């Protein structure tokens, strides 16, 4: 029996400790944001935030993050609402600025990698609210276990979306 703290809620999960977190999130908790891309921490499709840091859930055992704060794509709106102290009503009707930006600039093509791209953007913008182009490229290329890979080639749209999200976040709503 594992106890996981995911998107602000405690979950008791019947899974061996060595199960990769990805399979627990997808199969036991029905959280579909993180995707299986490589199982090797080489692409970032499976990324989640663990205590605010981008982590590859495909190689992270569920047991190793028991008790830590895990946030998936599904948890981003609540994370933003909590950070901004929004009312419950407001929180239910909002998206994280990163998600709003991703829609506004029409970032995804197939979209399969974009979970990790949005998780990486959230991690970056929480520590650096106004990143330069070089800092954005560096974050997506060098800050994780591997670069965050997009096969459809949406990198330019991702850069635009990060900049757009930074603008929204600067407005504070």
């Amino acid at each position: 029996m594992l106890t996981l703290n995911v998107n602000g809620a405690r979950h008791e999960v019947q899974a061996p400790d060595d199960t990769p977190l990805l399979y627990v999130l997808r199969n036991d908790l029905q959280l579909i944001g993180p995707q299986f891309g490589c199982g090797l921490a080489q692409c970032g499709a499976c990324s989640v935030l663990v205590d605010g840091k981008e982590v590859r859930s495909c190689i992270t055992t569920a047991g190793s993050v028991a008790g830590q704060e895990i946030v998936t794509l599904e948890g981003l709106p609540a994370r933003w609402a909590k950070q901004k102290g929004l009312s419950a009503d407001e929180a239910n009707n909002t998206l994280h600025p990163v998600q709003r930006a991703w829609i506004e600039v029409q970032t995804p093509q197939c979209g399969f990698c974009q979970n990790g791209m949005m998780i990486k953007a959230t991690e970056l913008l929480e520590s650096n609210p106004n990143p330069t182009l070089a800092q954005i490229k560096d974050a997506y290329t060098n800050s994780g276990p591997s670069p965050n890979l997009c096969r459809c080639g949406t990198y330019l749209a991702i850069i635009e979306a990060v900049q757009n999200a930074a603008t929204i976040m600067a407005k504070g709503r």
Partner: protein
Amino acid sequence: MATMSETPTTVLGPTLSRRQFIKAGGILVVGFSVAGPEILKADTAKPATFKNSLDPSLGSSWIEIHPDNTVLIRTGKSDFGQGSTFTAYRQIVAEELSVPFEAITTVIAGDTDRTPDGSGAFDFLGHGMPNIRKAAAYTHQALLDLASEKLGVPKDKLSVKDGIVSGGGKSISYGNLVKDQQLKLTIPVKGDLTSIGGLEIEGNPPMKPVSEYTIIGKSYKNSVITSKVRAKETWATDVRLPGMLHARVVHPKTLGSTLVSAGAVDKKKFPNSQIIVKGNLVGVVAPTEWEAIQAAEQVAGATKWTDWKGLPGNAKLYQHLREESDWTSAPVAKGDGNKGNVGTALASAHKKHTATYQLSYMKHAPIGPTMAVADVKSDGTVHIYTHNQNPQSLRGEIAMMLGTTLDLVIVHAYPGPGHYGRSNGGNAGAEDEAVLLSKAVGKPVRVQWMRADDMQWSTQSAAAFSDIQIALDEKGKIAAYQADHYMPAMQDDRPIGAVLAGLPTMSAPEPKPDSVTSTVNGIEDNWVYAPVPNVAELGHGTFQVGQKASPIAVGLRDHSMRTPGQFQQNYPRELAISEAAALAGADAIQFRIDHASEERAIGVLKAVHEASGWDTRPSPRPGAVSTGSSSLRGRGVSLMLRSGTYWAAVCEISVTPSTGAIKVEKYTLAVDPGIVVNPMQLKRQCEGGAVMGISHALFEEMMFNESGIITDDWSSYPIPSMSDIPEIKVVLLHNPKVGAYGGGSEAANALAAPAIAAALHDATGKMMRRLPMKPAYVLAALKA
């Protein structure tokens, strides 16, 4: 200005009948929604060839108008990430019907029991005339007929705006026109539902003149992006059925191995796992995904296969292709632009360019490995839940494999990772394996390929080489162009699980003309240099490498990938044209303009010249050197006509001779698709294609040895990361007088390679005629 209204218009075949509303299953069926499957079965004698639960000859199978003025559309084309079904298709239908874009509230795409036409998810705009546009035009005419009758106003006195038909001082909404009516619009359809092309709507219904467009040309957002970003979209990867088991497949040791003995499951460690063996197909199923993964690894280690060494390996690939392959069994294909006497012109050339160009095997490499859920029920029905570019073709392949009838196989289409053509002939891998495992255990089974399965057991984009000869006359003009393109068959649509299990499939590619799965190497690259007097483009085809030698008939299976065949022919052509320009001492863009007559080709060349800030001069640049550790700069250009769209690209690179490392600094694209349907979505498609093009040009090479593919992850098959991305500039040339919409996703991925290679020559004076331009290969070319 030429518009669609000036083309001859006739309404062939469509008839409209009407009955009072009826009840079906307690639900009031109104408007055009006569095509509920239950009604059809009772009411309509379906043509046997259509084999579909929706009758494609009924207008309502394509488009439903509802009493609340909302509209539903259906298309057999699955979305593969470009979003055309959610943006361009809605815009096209809304335009032809004259309803607001937002009125189209539902798009049903791909599912074989809920869509009418099949066909692969490619070429969405179908040379400007997709099925959905004709269906909308026929529906529009039927609505005008109804309104004319209802309002007592002649049809030619009616006009429509925002779904309201007006004329003679009266008006009525579409919703009120169809309310309480049972309408039956019949439209003419031809084709084969489960073929790669699917069905095609015939006839020429009147179309709205381009000059009256108000919806096409605007940047509407893609609704599915919103649901994906919100984590509200159900992907194929998310499908979970009651009682479903997870499976992994233990694929053979080599591409020619047969099973000696399957390992047993270690029941102490994996008590709930089960092994299933069918021929050379070995699967492991378990209630949980983690147990299935671990048990499959354990079984793989205990399973014995025969050895096989029947492939040339990378080092001997081109030698094998040129010297050891049978290029005589398939008829030689000839280009549409062939003319004159090339032999004579080459013999009397003032200057002559002769060279060979080589392209590696490449992987489609979806960012998520392929997967499928199958549910083979005890009554014989088969449900497949997957991400597939041609669900109807998959349906046919599964029915053939099982020896069952088509009506028992239903494919449900969901979003998934783009795989760029791999399943346009029906399968991407995993679907048929899931079916066989589900049938064996009598429960729904989810087969997920691991990264290595996807790299090593999927099809690939075919390797190719070309011999090009160009004769220049005294004035530096091209007097003759000859291309001999050599490529193994590029489309093998046999499902791999069926092959491994020894079950019925279509045949492997063989020399049969007029088949997409043929060894004939058709000329795919449209000739764009019309003034050249002597042209010979010849396509030479052969069998897939290793396939006949493989005891399991596998070897290196190929499949079309973005810009298929045309990439393999356009790269050598465009690089050779740049070489000819250099030989003539001419500027590479001006040289192309001087050899083109089509206004749109010249238009994109001039546009890319201006947008890239191109300085007109011959290549190589003054002072070009091929040694040293300083970074050098160069630029090159390329040109293509594909699916009704003209494309020109300029790539500017930096290269360091001492390391061989190339970096693309700026990539400028000029695109003339005719009518731009959705500028924002087209721009995004172009950007994505451009990045993939850089990847093809600089990074991608499937590595293989004598036994199989050794490329098995993102480390051994690298693609660009964000730091590899240059400044990208996309110039969209809206050209309404063309009167049609050209394609947008393909081509962009093919244009980079010849432009980058020309840029390398511009910077260094050295020509490299091989892809990819990896540093080690660049170093060798610079030293040559």
